[in-house]
């Protein structure tokens, strides 16, 4: 298991490449979501196809998640962007990268692109959105609910999750409860520094935003298209928030098409 010390936290990293000594065409960095998520969601869905398509695929567990270290503090969005920055630095990835983020991971990916426009070739948001004041308010509501239900009434909450979502999800929820109880995450995320509309619009690289047709985030598509200079959106009908896992073929194909297009443009 590869652990990388960024200087402030030890992060679990997995990397897949084209194999057979083939050089990679570009690097794609995959960032997972909050609480119950880990790099496994990418590792067992889109990552093998990305590697087979000739990409250097970098996946890591956010601090506190998966197999990464769990410091008690430091869970604002800026901490996550700092971690990503330091990680790529440690891995020696200096050129621009394609960023793909699922849910909160997309918010981190977009934040990185907003901070370092020259280091982002493209950004793909999977069921995700940039950090805006509305985003911070929503996360405060969601995390408040999680703290109340999961951290303070764990047995009842877990019984409900087991009955309605199965044992595997319950096990993940248990891990989430621990993360919320033992760290400042639920207070840090809503207190994160957010972007103004001008700062969002300053991300000029191609942005692809994918949403489940039945997701309450689907409304983001029109807003992003209006604000960003180069944005395409895809709605995956019949799905809610879990399109990365449930419709990974569609999601992966869209990302590869965007990356191929960007590479084509760069070569001209």
């Amino acid at each position, binding site marked *: *298991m590869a652990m990388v010390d960024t200087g402030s936290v030890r992060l679990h990293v*997995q990397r*897949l490449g084209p*194999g057979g000594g083939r050089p990679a065409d570009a690097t794609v960095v995959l960032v997972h979501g909050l609480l119950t998520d*880990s*790099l*496994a*969601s990418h*590792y*067992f*869905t*889109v*990552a*093998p*196809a990305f590697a*087979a398509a000739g990409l250097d695929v970098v996946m890591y*567990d956010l601090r506190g998640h*998966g*197999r990464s270290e769990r410091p008690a503090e430091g869970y604002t969005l800026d901490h996550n962007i700092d971690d990503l920055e330091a990680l790529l630095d440690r891995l020696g990835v200096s050129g621009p990268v394609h960023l793909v983020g699922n849910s909160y991971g997309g918010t981190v990916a977009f934040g990185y692109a907003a901070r370092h426009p020259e280091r982002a070739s493209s950004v793909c948001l999977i069921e995700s959105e940039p950090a805006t004041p509305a985003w911070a308010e929503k996360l405060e509501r969601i995390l408040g609910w999680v703290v109340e239900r999961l951290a303070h009434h764990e047995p009842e909450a877990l019984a409900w999750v087991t009955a309605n979502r*199965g*044992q*595997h999800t319950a*096990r*993940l929820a248990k*891990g989430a409860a621990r993360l919320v109880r033992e760290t400042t995450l639920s207070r840090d995320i809503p207190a994160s520094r957010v972007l103004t509309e001008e700062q969002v619009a300053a991300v000029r690289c191609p942005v692809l935003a994918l949403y489940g047709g039945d997701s309450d985030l689907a409304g983001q598509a029109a807003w992003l298209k209006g604000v960003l200079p180069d944005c395409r959106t895809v709605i995956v009908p019949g799905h809610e928030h879990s399109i990365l*896992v*449930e419709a*990974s073929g569609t999601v992966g194909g869209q990302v590869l098409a965007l990356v191929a297009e960007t590479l084509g443009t760069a070569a001209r």
Partner: protein
Amino acid sequence: MTPVSADEESVLADITGMLARLLEDEYGLDDVEIGMETTFNRDLELESIDLVTLAGLLQERYGDRVNFAEFLAGMEFDEIIELTVGRLVEYVVTSLKAAGAS
């Protein structure tokens, strides 16, 4: 370590060893019974991130002849939840045979 052999018995022994190591390292468990019918989720209570660790152990043992990530990426979520040790053993045996191991 014994040489890699593409028969069910040896592969089961390999994988049982890997799982025992993983359960010990991550959960401090040292007496879990593992057989062909054992499920990763219900019986061993492994999380998806544990399967990433297992992928690394499989890579160490078999190199590029076995691609666990690709194997799982081709499955529906429900199939992964129901995945048994036996199904993985079969996949490894098939992959090793295809790659020309004896």
